[in-house]
């Protein structure tokens, strides 16, 4: 198995099954580019706010990994559910979170998704069908497994999807999640982001066997795709989601990529071998896709540039809204420990054209 922190940047993954004609239409492809660009722009803006001292704590992003969360989340229907992790901002955007709420959350503002209760990427919008992550990894793999357990128990054709880095596959809870999902053939899709490093620890110190190979030992398929190719991620995810929805059980999808920034903004990445970032920079997922849209999918240069420019403008407006949000009332710090009522999770946005008119939703609400 190839190791991401080796020379893999020059070795593209085997091509995934090409999208069937019509599976992704022009608008879908524009949306894939838009969500990836939105993630990049929002995180760049967040990094600036951090450097300006407006974000307490540290700052974590998924630069270079945009294709993974966008390509995978794009496959989901409104009633599917997610547990989204810290390199996966694009999935939040696909499901309907807007960048102003994301930036406000990072700044600890009232208008953030947690109202200041939790920071950085520790959020999920329950009204959009997401339960947000905790710092302990890969805890959410078990929560997503439990969501899938509920779907199966009720005989519902719904799917749970979650993410984790290759680092967290060393933790025992990863095994617990894979095993439980496999034993009960639960409708859950596990997206493994192999970005080369668990903080500073390279693959060869993380595991002796690539975790994607372990999938079959749990009784379900593991596939490996180029994590910098958004349509490859989409395609593998779509197959896995369909399989889960039809009762075929879980799938583990390894998306091979490279974390282009530090673990957090405080990380100088001195441990990354010289030249590796430069190699991967040539395979930037957003640039690659923009070129491909023009070369293969009938987009004009101008159309692609307009999408990217409009997103940047939109994120700038969102940042202004986030900055205008007040700090939370300290009196709220002791409220809300206990729930007084149960309120079910809401449905997420499902922008893929496939979902238009299906599942009781046209999937287009709130799209930025």
């Amino acid at each position, binding site marked *: 198995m190839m190791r991401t922190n080796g020379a893999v940047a020059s070795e593209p993954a085997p091509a995934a099954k090409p999208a069937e004609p019509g599976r992704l239409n022009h608008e879908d492809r524009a949306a894939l580019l838009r969500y990836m660009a939105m993630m990049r722009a929002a995180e760049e803006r967040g990094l600036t706010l951090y450097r300006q001292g407006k974000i307490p704590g540290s700052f974590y992003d998924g630069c270079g990994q945009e294709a993974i969360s966008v390509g995978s989340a794009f496959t989901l229907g409104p009633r599917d*559910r997610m547990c989204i992790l810290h390199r996966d901002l694009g999935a939040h955007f696909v499901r309907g979170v807007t960048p102003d709420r994301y930036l406000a959350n990072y700044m600890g503002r009232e208008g953030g*998704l*947690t109202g200041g*209760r*939790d920071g950085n990427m*520790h*959020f*999920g919008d*329950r009204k959009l069908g997401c*339960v*947000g992550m*905790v*710092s*302990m990894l890969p*805890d*959410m*793999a*078990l*929560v*997503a*497994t*439990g*969501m*899938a*357990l*509920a*779907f*199966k*128990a009720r005989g519902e054709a719904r799917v*749970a999807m979650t993410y984790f880095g290759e680092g967290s596959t060393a933790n*025992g*809870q990863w095994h*617990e*999640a894979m*095993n*439980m999902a496999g*034993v009960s053939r639960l409708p859950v899709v596990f997206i493994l982001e192999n970005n080369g490093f668990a903080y500073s620890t390279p693959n060869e110190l993380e595991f002796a066997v690539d975790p994607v190979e372990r999938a079959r030992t749990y009784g379900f398929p593991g596939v490996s795709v180029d994590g910098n190719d958004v349509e490859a991620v989409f395609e593998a995810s779509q197959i896995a989601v369909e399989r889960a929805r039809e009762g075929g059980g879980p799938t583990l999808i390894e998306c091979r990529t490279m974390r282009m920034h530090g673990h957090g903004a405080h990380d100088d990445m001195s441990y990354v071998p010289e030249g590796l970032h430069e190699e991967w920079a040539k395979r930037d997922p957003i640039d690659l896709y923009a070129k491909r849209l023009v070369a293969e999918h009938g987009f004009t240069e101008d159309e692609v540039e307009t999408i990217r420019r409009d997103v940047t403008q939109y994120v700038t407006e969102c940042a202004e809204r986030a900055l205008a949000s007040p700090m939370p009332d300290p009196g709220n710090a002791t409220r*809300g*420990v*206990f*729930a*007084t*009522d*149960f*309120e*079910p*999770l809401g449905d997420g946005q499902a922008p893929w054209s496939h979902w238009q008119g299906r599942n009781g939703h046209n999937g287009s609400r709130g799209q930025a």
Partner: protein
Amino acid sequence: MSAATETPKATGAMTYLEAISDALREEMRADQTVICMGEDIGAFGGAFKVTDGFIEEFGASRVIDTPLAENAIIGAAVGAAVEGLRPVCEMQFADFIACGFDQLVNVAAKLHYRQGVAVPMVIRLPSGGGFSGGPFHSQNPEAWLLQAPGLKVVAPATAADAKGLLTSAIRDPNPVCFLEHKGLYRSVKDEVPGGEHTVPIGKAKVVREGSEVSVIAYGSSVHLALKAADDLGGDVEVLDLRSLCPLDVDAILATARKTGKVLVAHEATRSCGVGAEVAALISQHAFEDLDAPVRRLTAPDVPIPFSPPLEQAVLPQLEDMKEALDDLSSY
């Protein structure tokens, strides 16, 4: 256990164990979203037979035999709960909550505070010693749980309260840790209302009226206190806390003010335990009413040993309770 498979419609005597089964069965019959998850709870009916006959009645999709993995049980229950089910997780022994602690305290307990996501689930914790279970099958882990804001914790002493509190726990929109003392399973038998029976979480109960000295206890220590009071024939009030989070502060202060002498008793270890919290509340809010320092009767800060004489030396015994009450009365 065959008696437990028949649902009584009127009040009748039941063991503590039967009452737990009864609550679970009633709730599963009344609410399709209630499921059970745990190790060996299906065909085997659970290590203590609480779910005996459940898989036959409710099927394997609602009585889920899980792999031996406590974080998986609790983590998956969180996912199922946020999706609208009401999972009741069985830890085979309360001690094993340590293996599921991360999902309990970091995921389940904090989700509502952080994200407004309610997590309606119950974690059943067969706790307590007295049967040579040794260091890993005898623990009383309530203090661990009480330091994790977001968890409710209940610890019934009677069969009626076991049924009523478990029913309330299942209906609560929060994670509720239900401590069921193994020593009470078959030794305690009392009148339990048939059909629906709830006991509010957060309400203590005076189970013996008295005016000279108060024992504030929960779980197995309630029975120790009642027996000691009867044996001594003293004017002893016994307050059964029933819920450890939230604590019934009003009831604690009321009995402290009434008698002016308080013994807090529990089987769990001493330092930073429930007794410490109760004593601190009393010293802060009822200091002027005290006629003696608040005393504690607890296990010392040691693991629960295996060999009977060692275990008896560690767990509070009836004679210890009598001695503590005598000391306090004569202060």
